């Protein structure tokens, strides 16, 4: 099996889906000749033409809003938001339109579209190129929110997203675009949306994470294994709808839960996971449900010492794991 980077897996998925279905098209800023600022769409315009790989005007509301209209008409738009930090101008279109179209029309109109956006920090992007915005979308029924943590899932989940009859937000861990490599089988396969995955078995505590933080959690779990602490790591993969079954099953087994996410702690996605565990696994808990997340300052600062202060890393995560294991 060929090994590839996460961003290459994204591109491969787009290529295969464009090839498979003439209704699929890609739209976003600089996705054409430039191939996207992260190179996720490089070469696609040469292969599929400017009609199916569309350089949009510089306006996110229109990328998503026009995408919604095309999806209603039966197309399969894959919209790219250049950085997740710039998704807010499209917020009304995503929350009030894409998410509610099926329900408000009694199912007569549906919006089969994907919105891809690179997210996350640690890349010297400062306040506006580092944000982890998932919590703004994981309270909205009608949307599906997916975050891959490795190339295999990135390809399989993105192909599922393109084929999904609903609007799917697909957040890609940009720090891992080239850092995270893995084997991706040749040819056709998909990974189902809606299922978390136990990526490492363990008996002492359960750690829940996604995207880049999941990658770090596996590294930290490896460290703790050397110390005789067996951490179970769960890759949430789909953040919305929430796969509570897999989450609660793991907590029932270990009795301890740590949720790790890189966004601000308060009101972050981890709050829902912690709350679900607190309610659903109360009698199984041997320790308080802990959360490790970014500090409650507006966003990640630019200068390296400041960025490092904000950003989680395997060491900080390992420390939180030790702490909970010792409870």
């Amino acid at each position: 099996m060929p090994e590839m980077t996460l961003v290459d897996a994204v591109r491969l998925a787009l290529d295969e889906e464009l090839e498979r279905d003439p209704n699929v098209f890609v739209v976003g800023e600089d996705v054409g000749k430039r191939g996207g600022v992260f190179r996720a769409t490089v070469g696609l315009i040469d292969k599929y033409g400017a009609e199916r790989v569309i350089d949009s005007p510089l306006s996110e509301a229109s990328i998503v809003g026009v995408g919604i209209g095309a999806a209603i008409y039966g197309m399969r738009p894959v919209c790219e938001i250049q950085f997740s930090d710039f998704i807010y101008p499209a917020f009304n279109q995503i929350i009030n339109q894409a998410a509610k179209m099926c329900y408000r029309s009694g199912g007569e109109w549906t919006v089969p579209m994907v919105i891809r956006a690179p997210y996350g920090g640690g890349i010297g992007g400062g306040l506006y190129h580092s944000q982890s915005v998932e919590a703004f979308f994981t309270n909205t029924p009608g949307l599906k929110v997916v975050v891959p943590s490795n190339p295999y899932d990135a390809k399989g989940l993105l192909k599922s997203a393109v084929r999904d009859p609903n609007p799917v937000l697909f957040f890609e861990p940009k720090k891992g675009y080239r850092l995270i490599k893995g084997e991706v089988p040749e040819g056709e396969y998909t990974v189902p949306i809606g299922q978390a995955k136990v990526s490492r078995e363990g008996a002492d505590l359960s750690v829940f994470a996604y995207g880049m933080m999941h990658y770090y959690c596996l590294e930290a779990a490896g460290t703790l294994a050397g110390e005789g602490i067996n951490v179970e790591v769960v890759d949430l993969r789909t953040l919305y709808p929430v796969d509570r079954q897999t989450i609660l099953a793991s907590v029932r087994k270990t009795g301890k839960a740590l949720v790790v996410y890189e966004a601000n702690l308060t009101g972050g996605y981890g709050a829902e996971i912690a709350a679900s565990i607190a309610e659903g696994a109360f009698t199984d808990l041997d320790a308080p449900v802990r959360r490790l997340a970014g500090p409650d300052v507006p966003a990640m600062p630019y200068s390296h010492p400041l960025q490092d202060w904000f950003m989680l890393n395997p060491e900080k995560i390992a420390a939180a794991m030790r702490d909970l294991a010792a409870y």
Partner: protein
Amino acid sequence: MDLSKETLLEMYWTLLLARRTDERAWALHRQGKIAFHISGIGQEAAQVGAAYAIKRGYDWVAPYYRDLAMMMALGLTPYEFMLGLMGKKGEPSSGARQMPSHFSLKRANVVSLSSPVASHNLHAAGIALGIKMRGEDRIVITSIGEGSTAQGEWYEAVNWAAIHCLPIIFIVQNNSYAISEPIQKQMAVPSSADKACGLGLPGVTVDGTDMLKVYEVVQTAVSRARSGEGPTLIEARAYRLTPHSSDDDDRSYRSREEVDEHKKDDPLLVTQRTLQAQKYLTKAKIDELESKAIAAVDQALADAAAAPYPEPADAAFPVYAEEVQHA
């Protein structure tokens, strides 16, 4: 003018039926039989004129909440509208999930409208993009109020259409007010059609109380769009003869004299006069259609009143396309 006597009388009938249905809605609200109504009275000529210029049922429509007469031209029945007014089961726009006049009618290619103004213009542009990508000869028509053209989403929709030379017509129904705000508080140009020059498409202002003039300018725009020459922006000038909605009290911001002044240009009367002048309409015919309209509204009301409410459990679906029964 390529309109036959039959067609003209049909247009008049549509205008009349919409007016009487609309008036009945106000009466029902006064009687406390319905909770909400938002009216198209004063704008029907523009709506019917525009609707008859497209291939109804073939072309696509993204209307706005005052487009009752346009919807009736597209086949919405008084009974269906009243189901919406009463929130009854089987209401075609949303299964009674949305407020009245949040139109959607799949059988007529009318896509679902929500409350946030201007959002739907982007969907219309997206549908037009889909049409262009598939090389079809359909066109899209979308309407909005003049005040709502202050929204960035409206600007972005027209900009997309102009850049991509899409088969779409933007109709602005300028009824002189946005709730309480006159046009001077919404824009620094005398007509919203003036905005076209800044966006690179033709802009036309037309007397919105003149059904035939509106038909003509829209027809011209339709042939431009259908032959691939791109979008047109049309402002139809009229006057909102009623309060903004049943929740509004317009006496706080405009005088009775002003309103009465405009009643002289009531599009129903204007259209009557025109057709009488053309000898298509006689006093007798007017009375005959009048009583026919009243009877139709009475019947629709009786049927809608007898119709059941939705089951509470209907509210649980369909959040996602997978749950849609008929899909």
